[in-house]
């Protein structure tokens, strides 16, 4: 088997604050294959949002990457000089954010921003190429939009422009952090359809960071569920929804309201832990109905519970009968 496109091993991120050190990401490991769609799912404070910039080594001080290794296309990013890293950030992978307004330059036109992203030294007109990209991302009236500034566009259109800029670099991996969270539901559906279409067309891999299990269900191949800076469960999408093997995943699935009201709501009690001074034991134990003394004290291993299916739970075997709710 060939090496994966991206391998993340034991990634840790710490952020010192006045109250103490926030352990935002605590030993996250996963791989992404070429062309694959992978989701990092979790709620606020789960570490999902910190993981992507940490992969790109873009953590701003005082935050720091305190451990782990990231291999992209066979190269260890930690060993690369800043210049090579810059090149990989520019062309290897691209990031699309929740709020495109903060990622777009407010004083440049759409055309200038797409042109900036196009590789140098190729014999084509930059304008035609930019126009072509805008058409591909489904911007209405693309000739006129080329001259527009970001503030003249709607939220959905800005996200489309972000995608056009991303595609200009023909990346192997697209990192999308809550790309549709700020959008209305009909626009969200349009953008998600567009991302899937473009991803297939360009053969890109996609890491989707999201809090929305519904979006995960419709978009991805594999899922990692994060909680308190750790991956709690990792599985193919079908297995995760049909046979969840971590109490947090089960709770999360049961918390999602269903439009057909097929399930009664079963909220998870309590709230997520403080990420400062996390002790040993399972961080979910205080909210978990299955937790016992050993869950609160011991180190919890990440164990294989099925084909490509991993869970960080001592009771994973007991959960088999419970699952599928």
């Amino acid at each position, binding site marked *: 088997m060939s090496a994966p496109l991206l391998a993340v091993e034991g990634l840790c991120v710490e952020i010192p604050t006045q109250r103490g050190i926030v352990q935002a990401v605590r030993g996250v490991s996963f791989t992404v294959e070429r062309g694959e769609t992978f989701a990092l799912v979790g*709620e*606020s404070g789960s570490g999902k949002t910190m993981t992507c910039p940490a992969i790109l080594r873009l953590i701003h001080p005082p935050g720091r990457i305190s451990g782990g290794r990231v291999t992209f296309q066979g190269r260890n990013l930690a060993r690369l000089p800043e210049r090579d890293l810059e090149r990989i950030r520019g062309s290897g992978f691209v990031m699309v954010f929740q709020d495109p307004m903060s990622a777009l330059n407010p004083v440049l036109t759409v055309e200038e921003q797409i042109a900036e992203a196009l590789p140098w030294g190729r014999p084509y007109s930059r304008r035609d190429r930019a126009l072509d990209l805008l058409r591909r991302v489904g911007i*209405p009236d693309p000739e006129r939009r080329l001259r527009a500034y970001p503030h003249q566009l*709607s939220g*959905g*259109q800005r996200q489309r422009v972000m995608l056009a800029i991303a595609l200009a670099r023909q990346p192997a991996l697209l990192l999308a952090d809550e790309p549709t969270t700020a959008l*209305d*539901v*009909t*626009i*969200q*559906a*349009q953008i*998600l*359809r567009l991302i899937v279409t473009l991803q297939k067309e360009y053969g890109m891999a996609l890491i989707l960071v999201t*809090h*929305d*299990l*519904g*979006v995960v*269900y*419709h978009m991805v191949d594999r899922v990692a569920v994060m909680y308190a800076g750790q991956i709690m469960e990792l599985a193919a999408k079908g297995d995760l*929804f049909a046979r969840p093997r971590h109490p947090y995943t089960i*709770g*999360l*699935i*049961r*918390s*999602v*309201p*269903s*439009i*057909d*009201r*097929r399930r009664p*709501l*079963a*909220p*998870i*009690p309590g*709230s*997520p832990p403080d990420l400062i001074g996390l002790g040993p034991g399972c961080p979910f134990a205080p909210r978990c109905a299955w937790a016992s003394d050993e869950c609160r004290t011991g180190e919890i291993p990440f164990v294989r519970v099925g084909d490509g299916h991993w869970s960080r739970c001592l009771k994973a075997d007991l959960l088999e009968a419970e699952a599928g709710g």
Partner: protein
Amino acid sequence: MAEPLLEVRDLVKHFPLPHTLLDAALRRRPETVRAVDGVSFTLGRGNTLGLVGESGCGKSTLGRCILRLYDADRGEVRFDGVDLMQVTEGELLPYRRRIQVVFQDPYASLNPRQTVAKTLLEVLDVHRIGSPRERGSRVAQLLTQVGLSPGDGHKYPGEFSGGQRQRVGIARALALEPELLIADEPLSALDVSIQAQILQLLLDLRASLGLTMIFISHDLRVVRYLSDDVAVMYLGKIVERAPTAELFARPQHPYTIALLSAVPEVGGAGREEIPIEGEPPSAVRIPRGCRFHPRCPWKTARCLQESPDLKGILPGHTVACHVAEARLAAGGSPT
């Protein structure tokens, strides 16, 4: 049927955009945002109406007009038989007590420099409810009612998590024992697991207190759990209203069907889907004819000219669409 608790008739609220001297010199016509553009509905005691729609559809403005946080331009808001639009500011206080609101962001609606108990006491003081001693025990009771402990009253809003703050926001709204509770996107700022907790709390409170509610949300999934009836809004108007189960089983308006098919449902939806393209037009330039026609896959020549009225086409089910009725008669609707 008993008299409804709330009856809204032809309510209109337009916001004029700034019109400068330059605009006048260039002979530009003054423009207005037609946020609420002729809305009528009734709400019976003890019932919950879900008001859904996307950003800019006017659902929040409508809620604020009912609360008299905005003064509507035209129309009637009859609460328990009295038209609130005719009540003077000075006479409004007793009605404010009977109609309360929970907002999306509890942090923005709580005083950060005041303990939660003080905030709740203040509400009781303003409306002169009970003796000072009774007020103290009422605060403890309220905190317990929303799933906090009486000791939490000594904390400041900043010491609570988002979900707990929303519990405080709900406690404040309930302090006055309102008859009508308007909840404006109360779950939108919360994480999924916390959202489910607050949704459950609202369900429990409604059952135990017999509240009448208007639940404003962009999320059809949440509305499904909490509402007896659902009204779907688009660009300032209600386009469809039906009992909840009926609306989700037999949506008739193409916009409702599109909204339902856009919801990313775990497990897939298995219903008629209308993927719609394009974005809603601005409420400044509302299209002629049916306001949904530029995005509608069913549109006919008539839709470009004539604005459809809300019409009952099934029992308890009203729709504003020229095509839906004909489609239903032809048996073309999903069953």
